[in-house]
């Protein structure tokens, strides 16, 4: 279907169903219950799942396929955001021109950065991209203030020109929308103790994400994608096979930058604001972490990684000392304070420690990320299954015979 093989089609369908049903799936706990704090089915968080999913997907096209580790990808996200906000200021609050422009401008910027950075590989490439991103950040913060709004950033204002939109009534703030459908509008559905929120912005972002995911599958399975994996595997052989690796890496760098720009544009479409901190190198580091956490070089890994990281950010940072004290109420005095102190180190404002530790553990023990974990789990499960059915001895016999 859609030019994909059966396995990929299934994957796409599963992802599509999951994203469409996310408001249900991410809200498994009834409102008001003790576990409700672990729900993730609210619009703001779901939007970030899919948008950062797109960002990580794009990063993965570059890093997962070619092995070029960019440490400055947030620059493209930021440039995309600025482009989108200017479309909202000058043209219309409709998100479509904003999103298109964010892709185009980020792509053009990626052509420039890629053309220069890709003249080097290895850690030099990483440092060049980092240098470009930090330069963009510094400039957005200072000299380019007329374009970027400097430290305070930009927001659509009621008195912006907006050529295509009718003038706003007094006191009305401009809101992003899609042909009359406001991004922030939501419908709530209550069933029993559960409340499910369906947000227009989330569904717009989710549809865009599915399209981006579909395209990423096609790139992975294309001859172009195979060439990129060949470049990662053995660049010398690529050149001696009559292939010019430069345009291949530049093309994927630009595509990757466009994905980042798209993510930046969508962020603006959801919350209509942008500031330079979106380009800071920590933001670039974040997409690296997401991709590797999920599984670099795999199709679904980056999306999972983005979801996991954003979930941890939201949930862990919400847990404060009071919550932990509740958890350890059973523990005897003395022990409870030790436990509370230890756990507190990993939650609340300190959630970055948890991310950092998990990230390190993944790099050390599980370089394939969540996807590899899933595969290993499946293997163990299958083996047990076979044992249960009494097939294991046969398999062992066969192995012995083969030896």
């Amino acid at each position, binding site marked *: 279907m859609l030019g994909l093989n059966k396995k990929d089609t299934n994957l796409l369908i599963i992802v599509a169903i999951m994203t469409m049903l996310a408001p249900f799936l991410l809200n498994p706990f009834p409102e008001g219950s003790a576990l409700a704090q672990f729900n993730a089915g609210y619009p703001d968080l779901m939007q970030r799942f899919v948008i950062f999913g797109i960002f990580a997907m794009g990063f993965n096209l570059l890093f997962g396929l070619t092995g070029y580790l960019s440490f400055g990808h947030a620059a493209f996200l930021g440039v995309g955001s600025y482009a989108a906000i200017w479309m909202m200021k000058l043209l219309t609050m409709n998100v479509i021109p904003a999103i298109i422009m964010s892709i185009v401008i980020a792509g053009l910027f990626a052509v420039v950065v890629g053309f220069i950075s890709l003249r080097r590989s*290895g850690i*030099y490439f990483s*440092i060049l991209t980092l240098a470009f991103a930090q330069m963009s950040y510094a400039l957005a913060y200072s000299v380019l203030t007329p374009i970027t709004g400097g430290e305070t950033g930009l927001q659509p204002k009621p008195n912006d020109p907006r050529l295509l939109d009718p003038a706003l009534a007094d006191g009305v703030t401009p809101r992003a929308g899609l042909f009359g459908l406001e991004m922030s509008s939501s419908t709530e559905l209550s069933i029993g103790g559960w409340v499910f929120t369906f947000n227009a912005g989330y569904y717009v972002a989710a549809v865009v994400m599915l399209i981006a995911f579909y395209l990423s599958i096609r790139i992975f399975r294309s001859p172009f994608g195979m060439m990129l994996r060949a470049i990662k595997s053995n660049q010398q052989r690529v050149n001696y096979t009559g292939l010019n690796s430069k345009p291949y890496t530049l093309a994927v760098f630009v595509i990757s930058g466009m994905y980042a720009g798209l993510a930046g544009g969508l962020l603006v479409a959801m919350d209509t604001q942008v500031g330079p901190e979106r380009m800071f190198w920590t933001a670039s580091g974040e997409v*690296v972490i997401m991709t590797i956490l999920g599984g670099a070089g795999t199709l679904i890994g980056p999306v999972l990684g983005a979801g996991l990281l954003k979930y941890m950010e939201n949930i862990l940072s919400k847990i404060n000392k009071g919550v932990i004290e509740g958890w350890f109420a059973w523990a005897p005095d003395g022990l409870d304070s030790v436990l509370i102190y230890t756990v507190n180190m990993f939650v609340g404002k300190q959630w970055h*420690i948890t991310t950092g530790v998990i990230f*390190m553990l993944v790099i050390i023990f599980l370089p394939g990320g969540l996807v590899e974990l899933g595969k290993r789990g499946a293997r163990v499960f299958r083996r047990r299954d076979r044992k249960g059915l009494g097939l294991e001895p046969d398999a062992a016999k066969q192995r012995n015979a083969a030896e």
Partner: protein
Amino acid sequence: MEAIILQFLNGLDKGSAYALIALGLTLIFGTLGVVNFAHGALFMIGAFCAVTLQKILSLSKVTIDPTKTDFLGNPAKVKTPYVQEWFGPDVGAFIIDWSVPLALILAVPVMIAVGVAMERGLIKHFYKRPHADQILVTFGLAIVLQELIKYFFGANPIQTPMPEAFKGSFDFGAAVGIDPNVIIYPYWRLIYFAFAMVVIGAVFAFLQFTTFGMVVRAGMADRETVGILGIDIDKRFTMMFGLAAAVAGLAGVMYGPINAPNYHMGMDFLVLSFVVVVVGGMGSLPGAVLAGFLLGVLESFASMEAVLNTLPGLNQIIIYLVAIIVLLTRPRGLLGRKGVMED
């Protein structure tokens, strides 16, 4: 003219910090072949050694002085730092005043321990993994260390004042016979520069004149051959990691009075120090030092008003700009050896 001299001097202290961090980064890269993104965290830990010592020294014994009363009429509580009680008020006050230089003594063993633990516990397992993995795992470590410091010490910068004796400034102009009161340079910055020169000199002398250093230099040039000679190069490289950590830590201790230590200072400096290493030449120790001072001074010149009026924002991007130009025109860096990580 005066302005130029002043900017040059202003660039030296930042340049010293860049040079010291870059020197450690290069030592680690040259000996172990590891790209260490956690090196900035070592600089930060050094600075927090000073913070910790200062806190310990100001631990006070609370006594009640019946002769005085506070504004509510209750007997006043008097805090006496333990050091003052033990060593007498004068010596005690002196010790507290000198806590930053004293922290150097604390920092050396602490940093060596941290460095060796890091190498044995983590980095060692990444020698044979790709550079990308090394960058990633040390990046993760840097995040963890930085957030731990934030957890224990808070997000706000903590002042670590310099000893009273070094407050004030040196009138450079008067000293060299031009207009006084034009080129004024704080004493501490001068001390920082001198300190950096001493540390750099010591590291070079250590590598040049000791057997240990000779083996390490040989190992940097050709690890396999040294291994064949039956020398346990790994143990020495572990020590080098400790040394590099100590250099970064000492640089951090002394930098405290210039900029109050905060949890993200390590990363701020790391990003720039990496650029410094690349400009100087991956694996070249003199290159790291030269590029450190060069970029520090360049940055300082770029922040001159005359420059900013014509090229606004140049001070923010000059270092990156230089790095991009150097990487594209002379990929091995200013003093890099041919063929070392050139592509």
